[in-house]
């Protein structure tokens, strides 16, 4: 009986560790493109994009590099 309990416990722990090891952050950008259309010269314009964390671990945004 004790042997069976130990085997079940080990199996559960193995599954837990495996799922933790597979947890990964994931960035989803629902709308990735924006067209401003006509814009006058010497102007500063802006637009906001939504960034969503859709993985199963915390997402860290490290850097945004201008295109």
């Amino acid at each position, binding site marked *: 009986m004790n042997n069976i309990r130990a085997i079940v416990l080990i199996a559960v722990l193995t599954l837990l560790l495996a799922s933790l090891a597979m947890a990964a952050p994931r960035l989803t950008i629902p709308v990735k493109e924006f067209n401003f259309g006509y814009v006058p010269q010497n102007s500063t314009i802006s637009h906001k994009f939504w*960034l*969503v964390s859709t993985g199963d671990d915390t997402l860290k945004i490290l850097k945004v590099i201008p295109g």
Partner: protein
Amino acid sequence: MLKDVLAVGDSTELEIIFSSKKYRTKITKRPKIQTNEGPPDKFVSITVNVVTRPDSTYPLIMRPYKIDLSQLGSKVIDKMSFEIRNVSDEDLKIKLISYASDYFEVDLPKSIKAGETRKAKVKLRKEVLKKSFDKSFTIELSDEVQSRFTIPVKRKLAKTVRASSKPAGK
């Protein structure tokens, strides 16, 4: 960006700012976003059609084509009207598709007939009256190519205006 660490299911906004400078063509920029997700990096993409003669665009002409709500004196400047002229031969619907909603409201006509001139208005939110900023709004038309126009909205405050906003004793 409001947050750079997002819990599972959380979200944030990333603001992309573009200066049209002396460009004179269609431009696409692809800012890259690096995260702890690892490669490949993700991108957003913006397209801008910089016009050298904003007073002769088609199918609309905006007057003025830039909204400047700068305040140099004590008189509060919190709104500005502008004109939209439909220079095409078709009636157009106008849709506001992007604007800095935490900074201002845009009051636009929903449609404009061929050859017609309509008034529109930008009104600042009272929370931003003590701020200097460069923002914009974008409209889309119902013409065949769904033309878009982006109108810059700028506010600069004189030093004396900013100073008067500080609490007494500071």
